[in-house]
């Protein structure tokens, strides 16, 4: 990945999007679990973050079947 010729394909980009989206979603929920002193529920910024992360997962899932086409 760190050589001079490497470039993302649609498939590897899709996998990356799914990974970031999944980790991001977990992190957004973790804010509520870890920070127990806060008011309960998902705040507006968290909601926006969740929409972005879930969109990223969906984007990634649709990109993976596109295979080795350069991204």
């Amino acid at each position, binding site marked *: *990945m760190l050589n*001079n010729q*490497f470039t*993302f394909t649609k498939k590897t980009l899709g996998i990356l999007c799914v990974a970031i989206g999944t980790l991001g979603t977990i992190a957004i929920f973790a804010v509520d679990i870890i920070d127990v002193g806060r008011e309960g529920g998902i705040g*507006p910024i968290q909601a926006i973050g969740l929409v*972005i992360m879930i969109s990223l997962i969906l*984007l990634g899932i*649709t990109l993976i*079947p596109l295979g080795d086409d350069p*991204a």
Partner: protein
Amino acid sequence: MTNNPPISRPILAIIHALMLIALAWLLFHFVVYVVYATNLIQFPFDYDQGEGFELHDVMLLSQFQTPYADIESFPFYGSIYPPMYHVFLVPFAWLFGAEYWYGRLFSFITTLITAITIGWVVYKETYRAIPHADKTLTRMIALASGLAFLSSNIVYHIGPLFRQHISMFMFETLAVAVLAHVSEIESTPRRRRMLLLGFGLLIIGGYTKQLAAFTAIGVLIFLFIRNPRRAIVWGFGFAAVGAGIFVLLTVSTDGHWWTQTITANVKDFLTDQAIGLARLFANLHLALFIPAVLYLVYEVYFDRISIYSIWLVCTLVLSALAAGTWGAGDSYYATAIGAMCILSGIFLSKTVNRGWQFRQNYLRQMIVAPFSKLAPAITIILMLLTPIVYIVYARATLHMPTTGAGFSQIAELFGIEANADNGFYDSAGRLVGAYADIGHLTTEQDVINGDLIVARINEVPTDKLVLSEEAAFSFATDREVITNPVVLYILDQVGHYDSSELVTMLEEQAFGLIILRARFYPPPVNIAIDTYYEMVEVIPMNGFDYQLLRPKN
């Protein structure tokens, strides 16, 4: 495409005719823009809140003084903006002194450069993908794309202001244009030169206004997708230079740079404001936003993802969020509008040149293949719709004076009625609070009334201080600029400003005259003003009521 059957002459004639109508309308908006810029460049006072303080930053830098000073002691002045725009204006300050015209002219010219860059990118990208593209139509679309940027109500009304934001999006656009195909340059020295130029422009943009960070994020994501190693190496270099300048400024200003550019920019998030501005952006720009998004989707699934697509996503999402913070406004969308004009321009140019190509994949089978028999008819319909998109956009962004030679006749002919100050019509209306109440032309009466305020200040003995909420009157009377109210207010809100010294001066009635426009001071200062001063006169200027207060008793 050379293998496409020729389009019949009547259809081509209709497309050309409709495109000429679209261009004529967009050119009319450009004329309005030039008239507005000419009017503002001649106006000697603050037009938009805060312009005078940006001029003061220029004057301080021209005297080798820092605008990032201790705001808790006299003259209570600080700046929350990075210095690059003001640095560019320093030579003008040396030549002409404290004047508004050169800062506004500079901003206006940068918008023209941005628009030309947008048009140039659309033209170049069309020929890169379709070498046999129709010259006339491609030029028309490229011209329309550049004019569409200037036609946006948001770009129009901030374009000729003495504000740093406007030149920022020129640097961002130039950086994106320079880096768009940098990964494809085979010559290593040339590629490095282009990367250096692109990142240099981004650093300048970032030190013009912090929002350029959103473009930098987009650029780094793009470079990462194309070649992670190069993105990491150059990203670290870029971050090191940016952070180095930041540390230097923080140390050399005793930490005031940090307080005023970082602490002061951590503001409350107003959900209603964010939603209102997003809806306003969509209402005004939908005609071009749809093709821009379609082109983005096309690149994601059927072509390589360009820097422009990532730029649009990053600047739109991050700017839409940032626009919800206190003190933000519609101008936060300006960079995304530039990206939108480029993407929509490429989409429409590809359409009129019949340059669409779809890679073989499951989506092609699902979405494109079922319509393959209808392709010729769909192509003709889309080609005819292309100029209509620009016509709809021109109507959606309509803004013009309804008075004055030529304009009053046009307004009467089309039944356009003023809905803003000084007989101005703005399709954006005034429905969203954070939409700047500007765009109208100033009048002779505005200048007369401004001079009247200056005359009132001159009545105050020179050994008495004058506190003006706008710096213009201090410049016009050769008095010291005292306070930058918005900076004091924001830092007061986040607990980083102690107003005791200023309040004490107000209690002692140290000011012979106070001039207020919007009372942007922190609450304790406003209370002290009302306690120890009384309003003696209200002078309207440029749609605002300037309150003049003298010491009680």
